[in-house]
């Protein structure tokens, strides 16, 4: 099917005629076949495998990223749940602690109040006891002094020294009388 190089059928300007127009010369087929073969080889062995590798790597990368994202989302979800639980726990703990503290405060206040009251009443009691002891002492002193004064007075009036024993007995009786009179007066008042 190939035309001769420098075709016989050609005119002097080198253009073939008739069917020879459609019969390619061998060299044309040869060179275009070489070009085509080279290009085919490059695509087949070099370009397309490299592109496939790149595309596969890309798909794989995307898949991995998606999986990782899914995993991380799940993890985050679990963490969130945990935090929520912990938060709720902490809140209930806090409420409990607050309630406990309030109760404790109440008891402390009550206790303190009782203590204070007790202390106050103890102080008052002691004061009362002291007061009455003092009163007794004063009364005794007064009774003795009054007795001596009366004796002295009586000695001066009588002018003689009385028997010590008799005197003190008389004084005691006198004082007792005085006391009973005082008590009577107090009752009537």
């Amino acid at each position, binding site marked *: 099917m190939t035309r001769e*190089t*420098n075709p016989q059928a*050609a005119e002097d*300007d*080198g*253009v*073939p005629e008739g069917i020879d*127009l*459609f*019969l*390619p*010369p*061998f*060299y*044309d*087929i*040869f*060179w*275009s*076949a*070489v*070009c*085509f073969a*080279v*290009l*085919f080889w*490059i*695509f*087949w062995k*070099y*370009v*397309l495998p*490299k*592109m496939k*590798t*790149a*595309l596969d*790597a*890309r798909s794989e*990368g995307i898949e991995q990223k998606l999986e990782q994202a899914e995993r991380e989302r799940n993890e985050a979800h679990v963490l969130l749940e945990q935090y929520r639980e912990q938060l709720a726990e902490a809140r209930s703990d806090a409420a409990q602690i607050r309630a406990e503290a309030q109760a404790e405060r109440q008891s402390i206040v009550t206790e303190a109040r009782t203590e204070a009251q007790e202390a106050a009443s103890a102080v008052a009691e002691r004061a009362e006891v002291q007061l009455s002891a003092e009163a007794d002492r004063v009364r005794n002193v007064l009774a003795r002094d009054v007795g001596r004064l009366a004796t002295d007075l009586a000695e001066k009036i009588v002018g003689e020294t009385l028997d010590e024993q008799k005197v003190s007995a008389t004084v005691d009786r006198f004082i007792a009388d005085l006391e009973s009179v005082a008590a009577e007066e107090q009752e009537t008042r």
Partner: protein
Amino acid sequence: MPTTDLIAEGEGFHTPSLVDFFPPAILFEGTPFEFTRVNMIQVLMTVAIATLFILAFRRPQVVPRGLQNIGELAVNFVQTYVIDSIMGEKGRRYLPYLVTLFFFILALNLAGIVPGLNLAGTSVVAVPAMLAVISWLVFNIAGIRKHGFGQYMKVNLFPPGVPIPVYILLTPIEFLSTFILRPITLTIRLLANMMAGHLMLVLFFAGAHYLLLEADWILRPLGLGAAAMGLGVTAFEILISVLQAYIFTLLTALYIAGAESESH
């Protein structure tokens, strides 16, 4: 040439003609490996397209940048619009052939508008004819491998569902259309498109050149119109280059898919 006789001055008007497609040899003249301007264009365009793709995929990245994006886009175009849409998933094994076919034809077609080359590598009969023969072999071998020779012939030449006497008429027609006309139409469609494109480009640019520089002053404004037409035809040629590469590849894919399909 007759036209040069009419023009008295300058180089005259260069008429586009068939001579453009049969340039003299540059190298190895007289041997079977003669190397002409057209062959040089073919080699240059092959080197260009191969370099482009090799650079694009020299160090392919997971996240593509620059040329790799273009390369992937280009290959994906063939994969999506030729293979996937016609042959589906099982057509992937023909990807290397169909990708090569598409970009080889495209690159050689585009040489027609590259300044300095100005001639499509596909505008000599050898290239479309060779590619048509390869496509013819590919789709026939695919069919024979799938069905076996006898069954393949039967499916193609005796389509079922027809009364037997009709085969007298139908079988020769089927034979002619499938085994003879397919490669011929593939060849002529591409060849004629690229030759016509070159002739139109030369017509308008040579016309513009002549009218602007050498014609009577009154004719010179017409040169601008011719130049504008040349520009329009150049843009049109880009479209035709892509379209013809696509059609050739698409038809090859269709033939392969038809040969592999169960019923014709």
